[in-house]
């Protein structure tokens, strides 16, 4: 032992403070930077993993993801519109490992022990952590719409609210529909993933119908009385797709009471509607693992500290992205990407025992009404006493009055944004 003591001192003298921790296992971990697990490799989790490594390559980061590739919800509406393919929106996470040293683990996290700081995977593997980042996205409530269920979703009434096979199923149904048919889109009440998403979807379905089946109609049966970028969407529908789209607010009979997959009908408070294609966008909660780990409130979403996205339920755990209660921020990919950078800075700072920088968050959501007509909403946010709050007198939507060149330029930036967020998330 004397020999080792000598050795330790010897190296200490030679290399300074960095060596002071050698031989002391718990601090030795800190010397390595610490061990971080990330559950979920979407816009939130992958960005967090990447930025922790960018801020401090000495931290060991392991990303647990159950799907081999990431099919993005953003731009999945353009697959429906026929202006992008499913391949265009499918991305691999390998650069995270190859370029940044994030360890990728292909598997499903099935349990979290926040006391022992351990995550269990479906195959039985146990992984320990110093800090845990939980970014599992959403779970769809298959019991949230009476008469609808997973089987209906996988056959005649897709949700297409997680991109992939569901997107292609809805697309196939649109392609199989006769000219003159009715497409029903039924969005849920707030909060839900991507507030402008259903209305961009309607726009892209309209684009497809206008070019292929111009006598067809789209009916929106909405649980809500108002929606994101409403003035811009409705103005654009009038000019681009006159007479094709009808929106019925919840208070005017839009709220879905029940559906019948056999007869392809929907009962509302005001009557029965029949659709040739029916897209049910159901209510949602945080991803199942967040609920199982005890990180969610009774409403199904995870409360966080708005300055760091640290969980309100468990120490050393951060929850971000769609799963979190992010105050004024919408559930968007850009929001998840931005929250992830704040989480990364907080994880790094807390492992080092230094003070974390002040949080600032950003969101931008572009939507295409036609391939050459883009609109946007953007916002800057900071922590406030009531949660994440928008900075006053900033942000907002595109101008209501703008010429075709302006809309076209926002359509071009829609594509620029997509390329950018993929690069910023996966490297």
């Amino acid at each position, binding site marked *: 032992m004397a020999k080792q003591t000598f050795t330790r001192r010897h190296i200490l003298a030679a290399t300074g403070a960095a060596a002071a921790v050698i031989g002391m296992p718990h601090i030795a971990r800190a010397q390595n930077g610490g061990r971080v697990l990330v559950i979920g490799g979407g816009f939130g989790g992958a960005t967090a993993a990447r930025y922790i490594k960018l801020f401090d390559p*000495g931290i060991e980061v392991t990303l647990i993801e159950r799907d081999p590739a990431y099919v993005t919800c953003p731009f999945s509406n353009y697959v429906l519109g026929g202006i992008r393919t499913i391949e265009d929106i499918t991305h691999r996470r390998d650069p995270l490992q190859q370029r940044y040293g994030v360890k990728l683990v292909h598997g499903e996290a099935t349990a979290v022990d926040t006391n022992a700081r351990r995550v269990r995977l479906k195959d039985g593997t146990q992984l320990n952590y110093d800090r845990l980042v939980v970014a599992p996205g959403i779970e769809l409530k298959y019991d949230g719409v009476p008469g609808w269920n997973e089987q209906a979703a996988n056959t005649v009434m897709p949700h297409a609210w997680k991109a992939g096979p569901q997107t292609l199923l809805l697309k196939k149904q649109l392609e199989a529909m006769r000219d003159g048919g009715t497409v029903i889109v039924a969005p849920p009440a707030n909060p839900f993933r991507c507030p402008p998403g259903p209305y961009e979807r309607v726009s892209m379905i309209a684009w497809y119908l206008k070019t292929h089946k111009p006598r067809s109609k789209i009916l929106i049966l909405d649980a809500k009385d108002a929606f994101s970028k409403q003035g811009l969407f409705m103005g654009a529908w009038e000019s681009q797709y006159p007479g094709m789209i009808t929106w019925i607010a919840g208070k005017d009979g839009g709220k879905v009471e029940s559906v019948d997959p056999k007869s392809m009908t929907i009962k509302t408070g005001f009557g029965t509607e029949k659709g040739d294609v029916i897209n049910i966008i159901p209510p949602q909660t945080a991803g199942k693992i967040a609920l199982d780990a005890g990180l969610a409130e009774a409403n199904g979403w995870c409360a966080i500290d708005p300055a760091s996205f640290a969980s309100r339920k468990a120490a050393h755990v951060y929850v971000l992205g769609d799963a979190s209660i992010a105050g004024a921020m919408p559930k968007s990919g850009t929001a998840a990407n931005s929250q992830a950078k704040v989480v990364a800075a907080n994880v790094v700072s807390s492992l080092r025992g230094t003070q974390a920088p002040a949080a600032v968050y950003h969101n931008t959501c572009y939507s295409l009404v036609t391939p050459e007509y883009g609109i946007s909403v953007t916002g800057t946010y900071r922590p406030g006493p009531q949660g994440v709050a928008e900075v006053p007198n900033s*942000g907002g939507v595109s101008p209501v009055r703008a010429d075709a060149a302006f809309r076209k330029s926002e359509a071009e*930036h829609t594509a620029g*944004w997509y390329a950018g967020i993929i690069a910023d998330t996966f490297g």
Partner: protein
Amino acid sequence: MRRLPYLVAVSAALLAAAPVFAQQRNISDTALAAQTCNVCHGSASYVSPTMPPIHGVDATTLFTALTEFKTDKRPYTIMGRIARGYSDEQLKALAEYLSKN
């Protein structure tokens, strides 16, 4: 004699760890805020197909652009809406950070 392999092993580990320590940096408020831009504008190693690059651009050029967006003196699609989320001091610090990173 038995000491030697241990020394070599530890020294090697320290050598391997050395660049890691060299790369560690403290994260300032401005450094964190500047990362929000990357989602659209890319990084020093990735240039966006449609958004102008901002990393390594002269600080005065960046600050002038940001304040002119903010005050509607320069046409924009979304940058005015974003710049209004920051004080002039914050924009100045961001411009200086981005010019060097």
